[in-house]
């Protein structure tokens, strides 16, 4: 078993509602880990806290409690210049590449600045490294003089990735890196992540709501709902045999490419809205919308093992299959 490069334990990030002063539990006790050279998917619907989790990892949000162990140190306790140097090895890719590049900087200037921040003092070395970075993300070197608005979405996202690479990261946190891109470009960017993993052993936390993108790239997947991890497992196992009713419902919503299968596909329509993270349901977070809810669900279920490396936060892990009971529409 490999030593994980990033180990997050019981991480809580709460926001304060400015009007009522109530706690918004965006991320409420998340435990997950990343192995070196592994792409891990984090899926869930809007507002489940997956972006908050990602932003907490890179320090854009302040955690309430828990720990993020990286290279034997708790990232949350790091301070000062050395802390910044360690933190820098976890980089973040934003959803919208246009707004994550300064409108006043050319590609070359942005990469140059990232290298300066990373402590590269020699300007000739920086220039050479800039060209290297562009090559690593398969961009032609002529782009150094372009502004963000003068490039395509795919090119912009590649520049963002190149800038993150300037910090020599060990871990990339990618928040919906392809959802603002054309479908035709998505596969190219995903392949770039695969290439970075193979060439540099980069570990990557891939946050997405698109299950097919995650299936394409990730070895392991975490499913998040209302601030908590509902299910985790090897990609193959989780997609084949989802153990948590929420995952089952999510997967049943994905259209199939075969029209005959699509005709007879069973779909589950979850009723109701996601409850408010200010006042989440007691016990199992999903019980207010779960079609297989029992009286046991009023107590919080632990993460129950299902298959090797695959578990679900459900009292009936391995015993529940809400899709089999669903009607064919």
């Amino acid at each position: 078993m490999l030593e994980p490069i990033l180990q997050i334990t019981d991480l809580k990030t709460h926001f304060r509602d400015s009007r009522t002063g109530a706690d918004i539990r965006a991320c409420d006790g998340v435990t997950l880990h990343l192995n070196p050279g592994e792409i891990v998917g984090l899926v869930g619907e809007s507002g489940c806290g997956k972006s908050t989790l990602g932003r907490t990892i890179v320090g854009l949000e302040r955690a309430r409690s828990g720990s993020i162990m990286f290279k034997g140190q708790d990232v949350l306790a790091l301070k000062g210049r050395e802390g910044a140097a360690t933190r820098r090895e976890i980089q973040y890719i934003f959803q919208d590449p246009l707004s994550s590049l300064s409108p006043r900087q050319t590609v070359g200037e942005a990469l140059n600045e990232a290298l300066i921040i990373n402590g590269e003092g020699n300007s000739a070395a920086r220039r050479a490294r800039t060209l290297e970075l562009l090559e690593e993300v398969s961009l032609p070197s002529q782009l150094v003089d372009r502004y963000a608005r003068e490039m395509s979405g795919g090119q912009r996202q590649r520049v963002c990735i190149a800038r993150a690479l300037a910090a020599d990261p060990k871990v990339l946190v990618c928040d919906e890196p392809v959802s603002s891109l054309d479908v035709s470009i998505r596969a190219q960017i995903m392949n770039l992540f695969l290439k970075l993993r193979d060439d540099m052993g980069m570990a990557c936390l891939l946050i997405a709501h698109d299950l097919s993108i995650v299936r394409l790239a990730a070895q392991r997947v975490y499913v998040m709902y209302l601030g908590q991890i509902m299910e985790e497992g090897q990609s193959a196992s989780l997609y084949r045999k989802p153990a948590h009713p929420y995952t089952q419902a999510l997967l049943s919503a994905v259209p199939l490419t075969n029209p005959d299968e699509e005709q007879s596909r069973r779909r589950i329509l979850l009723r109701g809205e996601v409850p408010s993270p200010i006042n989440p349901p007691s016990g199992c977070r999903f019980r207010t919308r779960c079609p297989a809810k029992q009286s046991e669900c009023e107590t919080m279920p632990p993460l129950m093992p299902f298959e090797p490396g695959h578990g679900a936060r459900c009292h009936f892990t391995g015993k529940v299959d809400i899709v089999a009971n669903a009607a064919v529409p």
Partner: protein
Amino acid sequence: MIWLRKTFHIVGWPTLLLVSSFAFIAIFGSVISPYDPTMQNLSHSMQSFSGDHWLGADNLGRDTLSRLIAGAQTTLLGVVTVLLLAGTVGMMLGTLAGYFGGWLDEIVMRFCDFGFSVPSLFVALAFVGVFGPSYGNMILALSIAWVPIYARLTRGVVAAAASQAYIESLRVLGASPARIIFRHLVPVALGQVLVYASADAGLLALAIANLSFLGLGVQPPQAEWGQMLVSAMPYIQEAPRLVILPGIALTLLVIGFNLLGERIALAKNPRAMSRRKLTLRRAIFKKELEA
């Protein structure tokens, strides 16, 4: 020369002519001025327009044209100094408040609220009242009164920019707050502040004249338009030009600054067409269709 044409296009020639001629007068005032503005020549007292004194002379025989030119110098120097002082301090406070937020933001903004709740001229009056009237005190007083405007303006711009993804990615890269503030946030705020300042300059020119008119700013014998107005008051029937000329100068300068500010603001942020203009354009379009 593209930037020149661009400026010309944005600002328009009447505004440019007006503002740049005032600037020219202020900069080269001592060269083009026909007389020393404080030199008295009682034998020319109250002389009207003449070859010796193109715009006449006042009760002490001082050349009005020279005094108007000196007044332009005083006013513009005051406007520029106040804008620089208030702009710098306001931008510093606003940037810190906008970027760091929290209690710092609270303190700066409550200070601004206080500044806004009291009319700025009133603040200036109180300051001059305590420290005594002089040109320097007036400039300090106006600067203090103008700081909240720039602090709040900058704070808004910076707070909006700081939540942009490109600032956040710099934070993730490990950039220091100083780098983020000076390399990325200040340039954004500076653009906005300059636009605002160009429109604000007219208001300031008026404030300087106001304070001097009340005897709280520029002291005689130094020439200043508001001060010229008040010292000409006793002779308003005898020689109305002594009141009218500084009035015209002040009005032209204020119009120039206001036009400048408006044109720059419009170029940066085009305003939606008014209903009247829209109807007009539709009518023209219809006529063209019919033709």
